[in-house]
């Protein structure tokens, strides 16, 4: 009798352990798959700050909770071949701090000549670089202060707004008028 109970207890312990082991294995695999998808295909990122003001975060409240910030779907398919075009909204690592990611609009591609606002300079974008600017030029830290950035810093292209629900929709391409010089 005693042997029977002990074996039962053992069975129970085994059951609990295998259940734990199973769920650990499952969550590990789920994590791997999620990480792969977010690295290679698409991920969702919140947008903080007002540098892209009319496009993202249109409400200019003083107490902006993180819940009311826009979330965007970041498409990473374009990274395979670095297929970007003028007017795309891109996510990139900050050139001065590799841990930060910024979101700005891509204005010029390699080889373009661009006119800098509030000055009469024109700049040629070097090979493999691009020019990014925020839509809200009054409060945006972008290529006007740190110059053209290497394309290698780009992390993806924002294509859809997915949160909050009333603002779900596509992010449209836009180009400011008269910035690129014809060549």
């Amino acid at each position: 009798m005693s042997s029977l109970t002990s074996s039962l207890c053992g069975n129970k312990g085994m059951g609990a352990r295998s259940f734990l082991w199973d769920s650990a294995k499952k969550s590990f695999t789920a994590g791997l798959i999620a990480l792969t998808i977010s690295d290679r295909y698409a991920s969702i990122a919140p947008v903080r700050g007002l540098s892209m003001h009319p496009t993202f975060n249109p409400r200019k409240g003083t107490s902006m909770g993180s819940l009311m910030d826009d979330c965007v779907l970041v498409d990473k398919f374009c990274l395979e071949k670095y297929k970007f075009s003028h007017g795309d909204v891109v996510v990139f690592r900050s050139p001065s701090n590799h841990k930060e990611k910024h979101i700005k609009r891509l204005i010029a591609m390699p080889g373009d000549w661009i006119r800098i606002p509030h000055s009469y300079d024109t700049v040629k974008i070097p090979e493999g670089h691009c020019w990014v600017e925020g839509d809200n030029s009054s409060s945006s830290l972008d290529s006007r202060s740190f110059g053209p950035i290497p394309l290698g810093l780009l992390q993806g292209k924002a294509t859809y707004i997915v949160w909050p629900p009333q603002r779900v929709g596509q992010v449209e391409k836009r180009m400011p008028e008269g910035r690129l010089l014809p060549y």
Partner: protein
Amino acid sequence: MNGLRNLVKYKSIVKEAFDRTVIVAKFLCFLHVTNNYICTPALVYGPSMLPTLNLTGDLILAERISTRLGKVSPGDIVLVRSPENPRKIVTKRVMGMEGDSVTFLVDPKSTDRCQTITVPKGHVWIQGDNIYASNDSRHFGPIPYGLVQGKVFCRIWPPEGFGSLAQDV
């Protein structure tokens, strides 16, 4: 009756195929994560790292953990996404981190004019070991740290060169 039996057979085949696909997908995900977060093999060739790495093609291993944690120091060999062509990855040695001042020969082939610059915030200065045939920071300036992809720590091919490559300046 026959159709039902066929259906059952068909169903089991589909289930089998699905299971196999899931296993392959899981394996590929595992591969991707190891490759992107832990360590990656790379084939390097070209003259720019000549005394350290051969011309003909060495197979090296680069780890991604210390780059992610920001633990790269001068003297390390790193994999860098080229600022001139984002599809290309180049291998160079880190010569200076942010805030360091770096002295370099502008054009070692013709003159021995030196120039000293300070590396700006968030950037690194990279140079090839073969200063006569290397396209590096002397040409395109300091590069953002975000372009650094991994730190080379070991060579696995050719077999006579097998061994650690960490910190032998």
